[in-house]
């Protein structure tokens, strides 16, 4: 009787993870890189690394979370290799608005006109204000508020303590509030 092929089981597990988590993994890469090409490379390289290192995965973290961590690392590496600002855990200083960031590649805020209660001016103001956050503040805020991931999951992906995630989230919220509060007062409740 032939010995079971452990490689086959690993590939199966990763293929299943691709189906279950693929969109969110790509979304994470895109939120970090703001560049569809870099995001694609990050996801592909992450799966290549996962294949090579899957023996390191012992199940103490969920496979999906482990893949998110690898995608995060790959996306950061790709950004740094291109000399671009990356959302590093040690960052704390406010960033300047970046004129050359490729907003067109970021996850969209587009929506059907009848699906939103806030006006297009508010949406544009949000986009602009988000780009004035530090990269880490923006990433934490988007993962938590836009994608609705629990704080604990954001903490696992970024390898930051939950309390640190909340600090970045709080700073992001305060800065966005300062920029956007005038838009909220006229919105439909």
């Amino acid at each position, binding site marked *: 009787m032939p010995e079971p*092929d*452990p*490689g*086959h089981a*690993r*590939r199966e597990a*990763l*293929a299943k993870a*691709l189906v279950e988590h*693929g*969109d969110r*993994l*790509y*979304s994470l890469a*895109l939120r970090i890189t703001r560049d*569809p090409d870099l995001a*694609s490379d990050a*996801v*592909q390289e992450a*799966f*290549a690394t996962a*294949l*090579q290192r*899957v*023996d390191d995965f012992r199940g103490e973290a969920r496979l999906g979370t482990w893949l998110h961590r690898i995608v995060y690392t790959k996306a950061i590496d790709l950004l740094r290799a291109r000399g671009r600002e990356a959302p590093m855990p040690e960052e704390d200083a406010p960033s300047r608005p970046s004129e050359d960031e490729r907003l067109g590649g970021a*996850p*969209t*805020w*587009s*929506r059907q006109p009848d*699906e*939103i*209660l*806030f006006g297009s001016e*508010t*949406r544009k103001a*949000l986009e602009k204000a988000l780009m004035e956050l530090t990269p880490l503040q923006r990433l934490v805020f988007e993962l938590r*508020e*836009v*994608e*609705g991931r629990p*704080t604990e999951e954001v903490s696992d992906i970024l390898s930051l303590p939950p309390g640190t995630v*909340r600090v970045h*989230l*709080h700073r992001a*919220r*305060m800065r*966005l*509030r300062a920029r*956007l*509060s005038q838009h*909220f007062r006229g*919105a439909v409740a």
Partner: protein
Amino acid sequence: MNCAQLDERLTELMEGTLSADVCEEVNRHLAECSDCQLARQDLEDLARLCREAATPTTMPDDVRNRVQALLAEAPPDPSRSAV
């Protein structure tokens, strides 16, 4: 608790991570302070704006196909392959 102190607690309030006694202090201040009520409302509006404005991101088919091909072509035992 004053307004500045409450400002620092707003995220913890929204996250539900305040201790019971601090939560009580925060709610007592909120009940009496219209400025802080407005601040909390702003953060709730911000969260609502994000929920309404965001659309799901989908992995492009070509990326998915490349990853699937990568998984299909992988050697039987990756732990023995060259890195």
